[in-house]
Structure formats: structure tokens, C-alpha cells
């Protein structure tokens, strides 16, 4: 349940979970198991000066649909299948092996993850031949990486009060077998092509929209994982994503963009046509409005991060800093490494990361999975309780005092596994009804004797510097920002700003939250590649948030009016474009 009972929180919204469905093992699991035994046996033979101590094969079959439409015309229609193998070879020991982090290098090239294409069929010989080549390559890379790690460690001072965390935790072998999933991608394409066309025409139906597109992406992944610990995982992941984007340009040259996506797990969860068309219309209108909006000035003052913008804010600024591997790398800022049990957020905030959650209030959560990419069952992990830090996001590269993974080891194909967020869920014990947030913002503006506050209703994304060599700062790129005037003027859309700050200071200024969850579903890119995530948070009222001018080019808009406008004007029927 989102919004814990008896805590003063607002809405209580159901979080849906279910037991993983059980399926029959695919024959390819046995092929992989046989090759693990065969190849690891040779890598552990007495002839090997540096034997391998662990070997895992992670085979992912992907069926993929990419349908892209612009202004009623299909520009991309791709439907294909592939299968890749990620091979993890570990040499050395679980305490120090070839994964040992050195200067933010998380591969590839260290024997962990390679994402090579292999046969899409379960042909044992074709698989064995590919595994032979790629295992050999990974083993060679692993030897080089281990050698570098060992020599680096010999040159470093050791802190006896702070024993080194191991590179690879001991975990119980898991056998997890989900049924294989299939989707009729050609059927989906046929069904959705006319719908996307209609939405794309609506989205681009203004001469001030320079470019626009509507995309349906579908990935159907069936994974077969076998490791030398005895784990066997057969899992599946379906991800359907409809994205709408439109770009324009202000007269001063600033490029403007609006974007919206729908991310779901089943075709039935995709948006209705009415919602899709309404979204296209809204984005188009927002883009046109942005074009006319004034540039904002640098400012620090009260602000509201509304809806999913708050979730993105927590994901970028806070979530990444709780990823386990960042607590180990000397180059990392390690903002929260020593703060277990200490307050890091306002006391009325709680935070968990819960990949077991499938949906919230009926909205599918993209960061859902049953077993992570190291064959560790996903666990709901309490990160912050009443403002105090309780844990980190952990893969099998654990952080003392935690000795076990909590099922957050994730990767995109071709990368090394690192700790990643799944469904980051923030709840609050101090809420204001959403309907009153605007009034509370104005009250705070008046209390501080500021002319206006800022209302951020959409955030594109952002980044946070976690390396020690840089300032422990963040920058977030808002897409829709409004000035909310204290003197009763109507809210004013502005453009050209970024949110900047440092995490600890920024979180200190959260005064209260709204009472309903904003849900962000999207892809998160980091060292282990792009993985689907969700971030859930109520809207945030902050005492102070700082914005600065965003960089933008000054290229003139197109020198000639659009041909459609020229034609319309020549007929005396068209609307003026600019």
C-alpha cells in the first residue's frame, strides 16, 4: 500500500504484487549448464595458473518491434529477433577479483558481460561453438583485469578500521523458472500503425512544430541464466513503450521539446486511442506555448516539484547515490557511505526500492522483476525510514556491513552488472492535499517575501556528479516550468532553466509533500547500461530551489516559412505560422 496507514499520509493506493508464474524449463538451460561445466572445468584445471572461480552464462532472446510514424507516415517499421550471450568469468577470489572497481571502470573488457550475438535457435553445437570463443575471450580479459586490480591494491594504503568489502558475495543458488512469453508483434504492428498515424498527425498539426514523431517500441525478452553456483533462471520481461515527441524552435534560437511516454507490460495496458490523441494534442499545445514563453532568470526560491517530476528528482539526486558500488570506489563522492542510521532526508519521508511491485494503483511499474541479473531474488529494500538511511541498493558486490545482495544487480546486455534502482518509491508522513499545494507554495513565497515561486510539472531528466573529483552537485533539466506569482497574477510558463544544487542541501528544504503519487516510468542509463526503472513520489514543496540559465544555441529559426504555410498563404486560406 502506498501511503502507510496511521502515518498522516494522504491517499492510500494499492501496490500490486504477485507470485512469479512457474514454467517448464527450456532445453537451452541444460545446454548452458553443460557448457558451464565443460568450460569452467577447463578453466579450473591444474594447468591454469590463474583458475576461474565462477562462470555464468546469461542468454537473452529478444523479439523487437520498432514502429515509428511522423505526420501520418511510417518512417520505421522493424520487426526482428536476436539472442545475445553475456558471459561472466571471475578469476581471483570473491574478496578480490577481476570486477574490482578501479577508477570507475565497470567494463566491458574485464571478463564480465559482453553481449555477443549467438544463434536464435537452441542448436547445441552452434551455441557451444559461440560459447567456446566468447568464454575464451572473457577469460583473457578477466586475467588482465585481475592483474591490474591486484597491482593497484598493492600500491594503496589500507584502512584497518574500514575493512574492504568483498567483490562478490556468497549467495544461495536459485532455481527460478518462469514460462516463456510470446507476443504477436506483427499483430501489434498492424493494430497500432493506424493509431500511431492518427496521433502523429495531431501531434504535428501546427506549422510551429518543426519535427515530431510517435514511436511504438516493444521488447519481449526471454532470459536463460545458468551459473557455476548452481543457479538456473528462466525469466521473461515484456516492455511496451509508446513515445511521443515534438520539437520546435523559439525566435531566439532555443530548441524546444516536449515528450511523453507510456510504458506498460502488456498490450492491454497501452493507452486508449482517445488518451493517445489527447496527449498528442496537449504536447503540441505545450510546445507552441513554450515557443512564446519568456526566458526565465536565475532564481532561488520556493518551488513545487509536481507529480512525476518529484520521482525523477529523487531518482537522479538520491537514488544513484545509494547504489552499492558507489560506496566502494575511491573516486566516488560516497555521499552517504558512512551515514547508515543517520538522517539524510526530512523525518517525514520514507523510501524503499521495490522491484517486486508490479503496479501502483493500476499503473504498471517499469522497474519490476522477480530475480535480478545475478540470479538473486528481487527484494523490497528499505533505503530510508523516517529520514534515516537504512540501506543501499546492492548487487553481489556488497558493501559492509551488508554481506548479501538485496537483488538489485542489473544490467543491459553487454555490460557488467552493477547495483541499480528498480522501483524507487517515496512515501510521506506529512502531506498536503494536492489541491492545496499551490496555495501552500504562494504562502511560502509570501513568507519569504519573494515575488514568485516555481512550479515544475515535467522534468526531462538530469545528471548528478558522484565522482569525488567534482562537486557533489546535480543538474536537472525541467521541461515545463511555471512562475506562480504571489500577487495573484496568472501562472506564467517560462523556459530556458535548469535546476541546480547539491543533494543534502536540496533535501533539507523539503517542507511537505502532496498526497498522491506521481509515477515516472522510463529508462535509466548508468555504468551497467540502460535499464527500465520507475520512480514514485508525491509532489514536493521545497523551501528553496535554485535555477540557472540553461545553455542553448542561437541558431536562427528556419530562414523561410514552411512550404505548407507558403502554399496556404498563396491560397489565402492558411493560418499564419510565425
Amino acid at each position, binding site marked *: 500500500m502506498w501511503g502507510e496507514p496511521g502515518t498522516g499520509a494522504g491517499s492510500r493506493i494499492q501496490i500490486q504484487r504477485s507470485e512469479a508464474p512457474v514454467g517448464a524449463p527450456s532445453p537451452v538451460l541444460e545446454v548452458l549448464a553443460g557448457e558451464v561445466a565443460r568450460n569452467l572445468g577447463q*578453466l579450473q584445471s591444474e594447468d591454469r595458473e590463474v583458475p576461474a572461480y565462477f562462470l555464468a552464462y546469461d542468454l537473452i532472446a529478444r523479439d523487437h518491434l520498432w514502429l515509428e510514424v511522423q505526420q501520418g507516415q511510417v518512417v520505421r517499421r522493424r520487426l526482428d529477433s536476436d539472442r545475445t550471450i553475456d558471459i561472466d568469468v571471475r578469476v581471483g577470489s570473491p574478496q578480490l577479483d577481476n570486477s574490482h572497481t578501479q577508477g570507475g571502470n565497470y567494463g566491458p573488457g574485464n571478463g564480465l558481460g559482453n553481449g555477443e550475438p549467438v*544463434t536464435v535457435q537452441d542448436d547445441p553445437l552452434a551455441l557451444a561453438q559461440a560459447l567456446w570463443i566468447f568464454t575464451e575471450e572473457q577469460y583473457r580479459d578477466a586475467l588482465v583485469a585481475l592483474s591490474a586490480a591486484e597491482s593497484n591494491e598493492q600500491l594503496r594504503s589500507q584502512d584497518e578500521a574500514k575493512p574492504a568489502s568483498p567483490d562478490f558475495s556468497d549467495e544461495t543458488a536459485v532455481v527460478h523458472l518462469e514460462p516463456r512469453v510470446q507476443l504477436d508483434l506483427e499483430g501489434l504492428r498492424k493494430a497500432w500503425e493506424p493509431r500511431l498515424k492518427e496521433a502523429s498527425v495531431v501531434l504535428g498539426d501546427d506549422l510551429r512544430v518543426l519535427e515530431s514523431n510517435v514511436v511504438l517500441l516493444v521488447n519481449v525478452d526471454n532470459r536463460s541464466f545458468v551459473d557455476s553456483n548452481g543457479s538456473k533462471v528462466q525469466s521473461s520481461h515484456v516492455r511496451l513503450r509508446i513515445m511521443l515527441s515534438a520539437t520546435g524552435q523559439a525566435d531566439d534560437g532555443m530548441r524546444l521539446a516536449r515528450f511523453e511516454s507510456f510504458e506498460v507490460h502488456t498490450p492491454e495496458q497501452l493507452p486508449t486511442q482517445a488518451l493517445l490523441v489527447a496527449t498528442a494534442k496537449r504536447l503540441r499545445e505545450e510546445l507552441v506555448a513554450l515557443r512564446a514563453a519568456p526566458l526565465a532568470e536565475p532564481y532561488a526560491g520556493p518551488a513545487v516539484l509536481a507529480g512525476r517530476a518529484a520521482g525523477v528528482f529523487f531518482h537522479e539526486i538520491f537514488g544513484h547515490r545509494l547504489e552499492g558500488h558507489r560506496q566502494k570506489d575511491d573516486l566516488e563522492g560516497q555521499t552517504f557511505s558512512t551515514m547508515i542510521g543517520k538522517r539524510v532526508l526530512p523525518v517525514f519521508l520514507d523510501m524503499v526500492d521495490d522491484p517486486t511491485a508490479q503496479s501502483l494503483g493500476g499503473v504498471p511499474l517499469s522497474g519490476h522483476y522477480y530475480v535480478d541479473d545475478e540470479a538473486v531474488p528481487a527484494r523490497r529494500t528499505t533505503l530510508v525510514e523516517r529520514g534515516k538511511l537504512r540501506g543501499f541498493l546492492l548487487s553481489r558486490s556488497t558493501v559492509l556491513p551488508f554481506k548479501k545482495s538485496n537483488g538489485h544487480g542489473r544490467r543491459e546486455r553487454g555490460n557488467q552488472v552493477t547495483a541499480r534502482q528498480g522501483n524507487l518509491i517515496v512515501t510521506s508522513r506529512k502531506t498536503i492535499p494536492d489541491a492545496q499545494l499551490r496555495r501552500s507554495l504562494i504562502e511560502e513565497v509570501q513568507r519569504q517575501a519573494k515575488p514568485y515561486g516555481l512550479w515544475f510539472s515535467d522534468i526531462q531528466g538530469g545528471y548528478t556528479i558522484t565522482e569525488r573529483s567534482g562537486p557533489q552537485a546535480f543538474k536537472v533539466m525541467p521541461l515545463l516550468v511555471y512562475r506562480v506569482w504571489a500577487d495573484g497574477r496568472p501562472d506564467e510558463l517560462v523556459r530556458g532553466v535548469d535546476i541546480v544544487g547539491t543533494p543534502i542541501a536540496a533535501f533539507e528544504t523539503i517542507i511537505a509533500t502532496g498526497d498522491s503519487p506521481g509515477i515516472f516510468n522510463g529508462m535509466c542509463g548508468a555504468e551497467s547500461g540502460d535499464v527500465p526503472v520507475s520512480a514514485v513520489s508525491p509532489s514536493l514543496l521545497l523551501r528553496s530551489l535554485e535555477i540557472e540559465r540553461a545553455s542553448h544555441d542561437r541558431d536562427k529559426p528556419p530562414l523561410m516559412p514552411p512550404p505548407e504555410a507558403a502554399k496556404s498563404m498563396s491560397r489565402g486560406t492558411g493560418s499564419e505560422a510565425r
Partner: protein
Amino acid sequence: MKAGILLLALLAPAEPAKPKVEAPAKSSASAKPAAKEVKPLGKRALDREVAAIEQELARGVPGLRLPDAPAPYLATIQIVRATVLSLDGSYGGIITDVIEEQAVAAVEVRVGSAARDQSGTFGNDGPQLRFIISLEPSAALTLHKVWLALDQGFRMATATFSQKQAILARLAGEPPPPDLGPKPDPMPRQAAPDDSSPQLDREGLRGLVAQLSKRFVDHPAVDNGDVFVQVLRTTVTTVNSEGLVLHERHDRAVLAVVADTRAADGMHLDAGAAIHLQELPRATDALRKRGEQLVEGVLAELEAQAAAPMMEEDYDGPVLFRGPAAAQLLASTVATQVGGNPAPLGDAGRVRDFEPHWQDALGKPVMPNFLDLEDDPREGFGRYAIDGQGFVAQPLTLVKAGVLRELLMTRTPNKKRAASNGRARVSPFLGVGPTISNLSVKSKKRGMARAQLERELLRRAREDGYEFAYVVESLRDNNILGPVDREGATGYGGGRKVSLPLPGRIVRIDASGKRTLVRGAMFSPVSMRVLRRIRAVGNTANVMPMRFPPGYNGGFGAETGMDDILSQTVDVQVSSPDLLLDGLEVLVERSENERLPVLAHPLRPTTVPGKDKADGDDEDDDGEDDDGGAAPVKSPAGK
């Protein structure tokens, strides 16, 4: 949906636009005003799209202006619509099985004048801006995109023009030649080809690939290998503001085999061969049979290479290029060095490393006087009717009695040639450059039989102090195999030297008659004068269909690889008798080899550690020319 149809109806012009294009002054005696040349095109969707492009070109070229910047005088839009089937099989398993439709366009805007525009600057030549377009022709969407692309293309052109003017202002010497030659006369305006979808035998070809790749099972000495089938239908449409409308439809396919293994000393070896087709193939028994021969040939070759000894010492003497190697030699040298495009202009002046070497040799002997070199686009694997700039392709005598008479000219003039001779060839990915079509060597001297050629080879070798000589039977086809992954095998050209591909198959013949296949040979970079040292030729011509990228960076020596073998190349043909050259340096490659794998190949028995041979001393390394002979099965463990 409804709104989309309405938009299309509103924007599709009722009749083709009439571009307002001025004919270049005195481009040809029969030049007529462009507007009068415009003929109505067909009623297909592509014709309507072309009309929309012409409409926007007619609006954009006179309309795009910036203060103090040169005006556009020519704009070209190229669009490519392609359907590709790509199959890759290995050991019976299918790795890749993709059909994809693609549609891309490119724009080139020229600013200034034909005498001096922004073209020819290093790194900024040709279409600079690419953008995706609809898979099916769309007048409305393409019109909108062409509007944006012309705008961007114009900005980029003006920036490059300024850069070029600054360079020219500080250079001494004669000004460079004009930047653009006369336009074609008559200006071609072609109606769109049929818009039927290509019928691809996906299932059949997939089965063929699986079946052929399964044959690797019988060759355990080979480490790895793939069978590829790629099929590509492209329609390239070129429209410019002078009234040019061209449509090139090509159906092309390739069945290729690529394999690699390691010799006992660790040297990485590869081999590959392809059947190039100009159709949408079906998995017929005939193709299967050819495929089987191809697989067996490549694998046998690789096994023989692995068993062959290393070349022992550097050699500097006569070399016989026999069979395919002769044509491949010409495709690695003449094909790129007879181009007419002048050197691009860099910050420090002309970048001569990118100027074809024969541009300095017009009117001079470049080959022995008994040889002619002709390029005839009318018949052969490299045939075409009209080049990518609209010029009708005619036969061309490049070399007459050993003297260089012509260069391959596009519309880009050089100091000695002002006009195109129809050699601008465009790859499906819109690479463009002067390229051969069907190149053939004609000898006035009677050719020798192979045995006679070898005797002549050994005689000349003895004069150079050798009791043996080398016969090159093929060059490594980098356009199939991609770059060599051995550092010591990398050749460097430059300094007016041409880097030749590695020998694919090279045999040492001794005076005693012994023939030894060797590996580890590479050619020292050569001057183009090496072709003057052709001393004798064979009595039969080898006709080789090939695919390589157009232009100076193309040729047989380009390193296209299977990823781009269809998209980046054009079809050509080279026909040559065996060629005996004097004074060629063949060097021993000096690469460090990686140790052999520690894991046992699944087709080889896992040996008991420590029991297997450590150095392969007693392996069959006599290197006899014994195609298909048993190759050593390596014993990886313990090495």
C-alpha cells in the same frame, strides 16, 4: 488518419512543379532553359513526391539568403528506399535473420557559383545532411523535411564556403580548377520505377544459410565461421534544382562465407569468398550447390593456410599474379588511382594524400606499350546506363598503348579535364565518387600459357639472384573480410605509394618445380609505376565481378566487411589476363601472435592437460599445394 489523408491531398501538387533554374552559361551548345526541359513524370506516389521535392527546390534555391553570404546556385536531394534481408548462420544456427525497410534522404546545397563554391574542402564534400523519410513515398512529409534540410544544408554550405575562401586567400600558386562542370545534356528526367514490394525468399534462404553453415561441422580445424546471405533492393532517386530526376533500382545479393582459425604458432588466419548476384535470389538447388562449393573452398583454403609454413625471408623480385589475383591487383591500384577528382582542400592547402596518383600522368606512359585499359559500362557486372549525376555512360579508353589518355571523371573538374565522362557512381548509402564500371586489360602482345609464364617468372627471378619466385593466386578480399586483425599485417600507403591488400593465397615455386603454399607474406607499398613493370601477360582473361565502395577510398583494398558489402559498394567488373610484374617486394609479416586458446573447441577432443604436444613440431608443415589436405587439429590445452 483522416487528417493525414487530407494533408496529403492538400499538398500533393496537381501537376509537377516547374523549377526556375537557369542553365549554366554555355554548358553545352544545345542547352535549353531548364523550365522547358521539364517533362511531366508518371502518376506514381514516388512521382508525386519528386514533384514536391522539385517544388521545394524551386522555392528554396532562390529564397534561401543570409546577409553577406553566398547564395545557393544548385541543390540536390537524394532519397533511398531500401529493403534488406540479412541472414547470418554459424554451425547450423541462425544468428541474424532480419528484414528491414529503410528510407533515408540526403541534401547537398552548393553556394557561390560553379566556378567557386564550397565543395572540395577536406571532410566537407558531398551530401552533408541525412534524414529519415517515410518508407512509402509521401509528398507531404518529404516536402516538410526537404524544407528543413535545405535550410540546414544552406547554413552548412555557407560556413564551409567561408572556410574555403580563407584557405584560398592565403595560398600561393594557380587557383584551383572550377568546382562544378557542365550539366548533362540532355538532362534526364525519369519516371519512377514500379512500386511493387520485393518478394524475398526469406524462409528458403534461411534454410540455405543454416544448411551451408552446418558444413563447418566437418572441419574441426577451423575455429569459427559464418555463412551470410544479404539481399538488398534499393531505389535511389536523385532530384536537383537543374531539373534532373533519376531513379536507380537495384536488386543485389551476396552469398558469402567467412571463416577464421589459428595456425599452430598462434597466427590468426581468415578466409572468405562470395557469390555476388544481381537479383533477388531464391534458395534453388543451383544456388545451394554453388554455396556448398563456396563453403568447401573457403574451409579447405583456410585449413591449407593453417598448415602452411611461414614465408622465410623478404623477397624483391618478379611476381606472377595469376587468376583472380591479376584482376584484384588492378582493382586495388588502377580503380582508385585513375579517378579525376582533385585533392581536397585542407587548412594547409591541397591534401595530396587524397589525390589519385595518375592525375599527374595524363599523356604519359603508365603501363607497357603493349597494353590498353578500357572501361565499358555497357555490358558486364558493372554495367549502368546513366551515372549518378545524369550522364550517359560511354566506353572509355583509359590507357592506349601504355599511355594514360583519360581519367574517370564526374562533374568535378580537375586541371586537365573540365567535363564528366559519366563515372559518378553512387552506392546505396549515397557514397559517390569516380569509379570504374567494367575494366579490362587488352594486350597487343600474344599472351603466354601458364607454364610458360612460370618459366619466365623463374628466369627473371634468377636474374635477381633467386632460385625461387612467388605466384599470387588471390588477394585478401577486405570488402568481405574487413580489416586484418594482426597489427604487423597493416600496410601503410602515403608518400605516393599504394598499399596493396595482403596476398590471400601465395605460392612459392622453386626451380625444382616444388610448389609451397606460404603464409605471413605481405606486399611492400608500391608506386603506381609498378604497372609499367608488367613484363608478360597470360593468354586468357579472368573476369572478376566485385563490389567495393566508390571513389578514392574505395577499390578492392577498401575494408568494407560484410556489414556494408551491399550498402556501401557499387558493382564493378575487372577482366585481366595473368600479369607478371618485375620488382615487387614481398615481405615477411612480423606480428606477435597470441597464445592458443586454453579451452577446447567443441568439435575437438578435450585433451588431458599436459599430455598434448606443446609446440606442434611434428605438424604437417610442408605447405604443399594440397588443397583439401588434412589440417592439424590443434590441441589447445597446455599451450
